[in-house]
């Protein structure tokens, strides 16, 4: 019983990590129709900023707070300079963002010297429920993910900015005709997606430690999750991420980890083949 509970907690915390990473990817894919191969490197940058704050002698949480803003700003610059040229062509966008990701990843690799660097948790220790010890930090990740999801949902559904975002998503031409600058909305969305990835990176670095291929690990998982969930909505990628994250964390308890890892992807690809629109079809929230 305790084991089951511990396993469920483990699965939940990993699922929420995947959701956090995928949310930004999904938002960018839905809005601009491009799959951002540099998303994993935004995760890496978030982790790296946290590490920088830690080595500068600041408390770790300051880095975590700063990471989404800095990575978001960086994302905005990249979008304005480079990524916006790719919106018309999804394949070129993949290649271009892959190149961007490669540059960022290798620079960070050069800076940290190919090592695995551990960063301490800002809130350590564990909470004991009955006989089970739960890591406090993983609990924090789950809570933050929930908050971010609620926040994003409210932003999209309740604010005038969200209304404009949805308008540009559903019918860009009409949105432009109504005086909405889709151009600016795209920039803001990309920055927002990057900021989410930065936050994800900052939060997971104490769990996974910092290394140059940190982001790569989540990239394919993220793409698959977005496709399973369905491009074009808010709920789709979140649902997809929930399923992929849960499966990826749950299956290794049952079968060999390597087989489990591959099995999740194969199942997902088969699912997408027969339901190309994903779990949640249609645009909007």
């Amino acid at each position, binding site marked *: 019983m305790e084991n089951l509970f511990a396993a469920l907690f483990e699965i939940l915390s990993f699922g929420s990590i995947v959701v956090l990473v995928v949310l930004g990817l999904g938002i960018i894919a839905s809005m601009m129709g491009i799959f951002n191969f540099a998303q994993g490197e935004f995760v890496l940058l978030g982790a790296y900023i946290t590490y920088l704050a830690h080595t500068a002698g600041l408390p770790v949480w300051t880095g975590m707070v700063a990471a989404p803003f800095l990575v978001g700003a960086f994302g905005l610059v990249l979008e304005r300079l480079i990524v916006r040229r790719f919106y018309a062509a999804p394949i070129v966008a*993949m290649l271009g963002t892959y190149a961007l990701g490669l540059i960022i990843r290798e620079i960070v690799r050069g800076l940290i010297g190919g090592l695995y660097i551990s960063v301490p948790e800002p809130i350590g220790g564990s909470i004991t429920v009955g006989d089970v010890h739960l890591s406090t930090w993983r609990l924090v990740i789950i809570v933050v993910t929930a908050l971010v999801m609620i926040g994003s949902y409210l932003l999209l559904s309740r604010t005038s900015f969200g209304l404009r975002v949805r308008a540009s998503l559903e019918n860009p031409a009409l949105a432009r005709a109504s005086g909405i600058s889709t151009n600016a909305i795209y920039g803001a969305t990309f920055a927002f997606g990057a900021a989410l990835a930065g936050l994800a990176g900052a939060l997971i670095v104490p769990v996974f430690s910092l290394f140059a291929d940190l982001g790569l690990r989540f990239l394919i998982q993220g793409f698959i999750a977005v496709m399973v969930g369905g491009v074009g909505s808010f709920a789709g990628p979140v649902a997809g991420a929930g399923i992929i994250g849960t499966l990826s964390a749950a299956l290794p308890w049952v079968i060999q980890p390597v087989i489990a890892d591959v099995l999740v*992807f194969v199942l997902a690809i088969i699912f997408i083949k027969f339901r190309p629109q994903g779990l949640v079809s249609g645009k909007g929230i």
Partner: protein
Amino acid sequence: MTDVSSTLSEASPPRAKRRRAVLPIIEIAMLAVFLLLPLVLQDYLTVFMTRVLILCLFALSFDLVWGYAGIMSFGQAVFFGGAGYGVALLGRDLGISSMLLVVPAGVLIGFALALLIGGFLLLGRNPSSVIFVSLGTLTASYAFDRLARGWYYLGGQNGIPSIPQMTIGSYDLGEGPVFYYLALVILVAVYAVCRYLVRSQFGLALAGLRENEQRIAFFGYKVQHLKAIIFSLGGAIAGLAGSLYAFHEGFVWPNMLGVVMSTQVVLYVLFGGSGTLIGAVIGTVVIEIVSFWLSNSYQDIWPIILGALMLLVILFRPAGLISLIVSHSERIGSFGRPPKGSDHGSA
């Protein structure tokens, strides 16, 4: 881009005054250089150039699939590495190392894998989106990499070391000039076949796929079948390259199957110029030589330079290096005449 119908009309009447064709000159020049290289290079450089030639073969396979048919395969390394592992197992477990057996085996493995993966991703009632195909192949590459790393029989992380040398009859084919010329002969032969193929009516249909898939479908072509055919053919060539590579290096390891190798080949072709066969060769040669040259002193920053180069090419020279010297119309080229008594060429 020029659409297919105008290319077709351009092709039939020979114009009175043609611009000097540059492509054949480049091809002959490259061939001449390749032929003479082992005479002037030191042995270890000949070995290096053999590897480059084999990678050129691999790049051709990707160019055929992406540059001509417009199918984005982010998993081309699956066929390359899959064939490599296959022939390595033949060599290790069955002691088969005769070139007449292992090279066809490699081709067959590449073809079969591509037919399997391509058949699943490309065929079916609903046409697959470009994104689905590219992510599907990427996932396949990742999955095969993971399996190879985790499977003890395949040597796990270390791969399969010390494959026996390839033999022709009783002759042992080790690294060196002989292997170099063998690779060159195979490369030239495959190049010639590809060149014939893409300049035939089949090639015209492929170019149509790339430019406007829907229109080709409206012409009555079975678009998905065409795609599956060229994808499998690309797989077969990648398999050929993979089997040669495995025997040349003497070992295979999981990176040969993985995402890194798959994106590497994209880079070669993109850099040299997709949609021209010689572009793929030039891209491979340039990138490999620069990488070899820089790897001694600037190993750390080379990937960064590579990424920056790739970005610059995508932004400013989407047609690759080759577009600096070869005109657009020549890159599109002309296609063989339709066979007599049929209206729409071969399908």
